[in-house]
């Protein structure tokens, strides 16, 4: 029951924002509904920890450890981004008369994001992932400027092209399940159980199609080209959602399917995942040196992290799986903080260009401090959570004998670290241009940054017991155990 309410609250919020008398309170409604949804997600997580699985509607809506972890992340990021949007959109958007529409569409996006991990049936997961893509398109183009519309169009074409490809993949998966003698309704759990009896050729073909289709949505290289455009042009709260969680949710679907494939004895594709993951990390690490726009910089860092998660899952060992889960979680909380900070810098200075930002520490100590913190965290400096998860992934790779991959990954991570710091260094220090006008930060922006920074600081030094057991449970389910 709690699960059903958790996933339907954003839909309720979207409906309310659409009704005329409520349009003026769209922001309050959004924040209240999404916060409630987060609270209920915590409750659901506690039930999952107690019982192992929570069933909303049997064989349709079920949440195990991995699902509930993603649900928690979605509601956390979406709720905070909504709080952030309050001050930011009223201040930074040119489209203030259409704000109710923004929140309506935003809630639909949050609904699509939160429902994907709750679906027990892979076919419905496809529908959910497509809904995410569709609801995000108009939000990317919300500002209606030529560049925003160009970004929205690129995003739409590249990601929608993946839709029919992955659809065929899910049809083939269903076919394989059927041949192996499964029932009429396939669920993730049913797939694990049937994995060893399904024809390996069909499984591999289906995974290939789903991987190509969903990989475009995750932003894996070479299908990442929409990502920096969309992430630099969309309103900043949308960037936080897109980068923090929207890329992780299709990746969640890929990882779920990957664990089914890895459970089949003849379909060995783990090493391919390592190679493709490393390719994404490499592309991102080198492009990070080239960026001129700090929002694009964080976008490329997302490509890097998605690649790291895929590499870790490709190791196909317990250590790799728990590393992938930890990285998925740490990426979401840290990357959303990065975009809130980027939004704050944009509010203060009104420019996205790195070279036009000088001496941020003197202009706005709050934004400067937040930028330093989030860049350290996202680049993977100790003692932040991403350092821990990257370290555990590297050591898991060594233990499973992927020595070459670990060396390459370590070099690329260090390169990305250097690139991010070369860029950030130019923004933080030096003398600000005297003519620049500075705008005070809205309270909701500061609040969102402070709340988002708390888990980033805490989880690096201390992981609370329930969080640790949830991560362990999720990692086990990622391995299909």
């Amino acid at each position: 029951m709690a699960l059903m309410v958790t996933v339907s609250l954003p839909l309720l919020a979207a409906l309310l924002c659409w009704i005329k008398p409520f349009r003026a309170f769209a922001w309050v409604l959004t924040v209240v509904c999404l916060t409630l949804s987060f609270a209920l997600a915590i409750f659901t997580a506690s039930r999952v920890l107690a019982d192992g699985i929570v069933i909303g509607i049997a064989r349709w809506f079920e949440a195990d450890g991995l699902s509930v972890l993603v649900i928690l992340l979605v509601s956390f990021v979406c709720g905070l981004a909504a709080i952030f949007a309050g001050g930011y959109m009223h201040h930074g958007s040119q489209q203030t008369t259409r704000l109710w529409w923004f929140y309506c569409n935003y809630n639909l996006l949050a609904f699509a994001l939160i429902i994907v991990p709750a679906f027990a049936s892979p076919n419905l997961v496809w529908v959910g992932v497509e809904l995410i893509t569709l609801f995000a398109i108009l939000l990317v183009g919300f500002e209606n400027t030529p560049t925003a519309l160009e970004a929205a169009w690129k995003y739409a074409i590249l990601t929608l092209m993946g839709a029919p490809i992955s659809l065929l993949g899910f049809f083939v998966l269903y076919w394989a399940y059927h041949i192996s003698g499964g029932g009429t309704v396939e669920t993730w759990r049913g797939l694990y159980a049937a994995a060893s009896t399904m024809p390996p050729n069909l499984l591999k073909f289906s995974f290939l199609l789903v991987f190509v289709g969903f990989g475009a949505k995750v932003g894996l290289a070479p299908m990442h080209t929409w990502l920096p455009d969309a992430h630099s042009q969309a309103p900043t709260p949308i960037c936080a959602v897109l980068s923090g969680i929207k890329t992780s949710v299709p990746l969640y679907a890929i990882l779920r399917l990957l664990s089914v494939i890895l459970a089949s004895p003849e379909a060995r594709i783990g090493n391919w995942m390592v190679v493709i993951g490393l390719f994404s990390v490499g592309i991102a690490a080198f492009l990070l040196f080239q960026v001129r726009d700090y929002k694009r910089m964080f976008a490329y860092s997302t490509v890097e992290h998605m690649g790291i998660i895929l590499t870790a899952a490709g190791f196909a060992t317990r250590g790799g799986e728990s590393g992938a889960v930890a990285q998925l979680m740490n990426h979401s909380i840290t990357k959303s903080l990065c975009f809130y900070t980027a939004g704050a810098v944009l509010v203060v200075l009104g420019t996205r260009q790195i070279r036009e930002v000088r001496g941020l520490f003197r202009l706005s100590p709050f934004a400067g401090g937040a930028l330093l913190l989030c860049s350290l965290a996202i680049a993977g400096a100790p003692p932040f959570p991403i350092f821990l998860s990257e370290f555990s992934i590297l050591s898991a790779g060594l233990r499973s004998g992927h020595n070459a991959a670990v060396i390459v990954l370590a070099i690329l991570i260090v390169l990305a670290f250097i690139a991010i710091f070369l860029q950030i260094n130019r923004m933080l220090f030096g003398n600000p241009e005297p003519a620049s006008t500075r705008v005070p930060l809205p309270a909701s922006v500061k609040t969102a940054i402070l709340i988002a920074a708390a888990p980033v600081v805490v989880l690096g030094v201390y992981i609370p017991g329930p969080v640790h057991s949830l991560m362990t449970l999720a990692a086990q389910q990622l391995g299909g155990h």
Partner: protein
Amino acid sequence: MASAQTQLIEGLNALDAGLILLTAFGMVATRQVQGVMRFFIVQSIFLAISAFLIGFNRGSIHLIALGVITIGAKAIAIPLVLKRTLPNDLYERREINQVINIPSSLLLALLLAIAAEFLVGPLVSVSTDPVVHVNLPIGLAGILIGAYSLVARREAIPQLVGILAMENGAFFAGVAIASDLPLIAEFAIAIDVILIAVVIGVLTRDITRTVGTTEAATMSELKEEPYEWR
């Protein structure tokens, strides 16, 4: 008697598959935006016919329902939605500068169809059902040709139709290999397809108003330029 009927239906399905492939070629070969749209509607009707035929053959209510949903969504709802959201003059356009000219495009489409046949060759051997042997390669060919026209086209609406034609290809394979998919999933997928048309329609309208062109491929302001280090 029953086997003669089955054979007839399988024959008709094979004919239908050929017609679907022909409409896919037609979309590649047409310059007029309106013409591309018409080919898409015809292709959707052929898809529904295949669903009816296989549904009748296997006694599956699901497939009959899927055929009805397909006609409702793709042959009626999507053209209506696009007519409503988009200004009429978009339909009367002709695409002058295509990336690749039409004869070469057709040749490439033919190569893609042959490639699809070879790609799924090892896969269809798991089934003895002749319908699978027809629908899976043609469906994959539909996807590949749709993807190709998406890359080669410059106007917004033909690009959208390319995505929808890819969806048709996926479904054409789907009716043969996943014939008893839960109806709710099929229904959700149909709604999803209509939503694609709505969202792309609205986006195209916004682009026409703000940028003044629907040659989406000409928009290329966002890219990475080398950073000059100072």
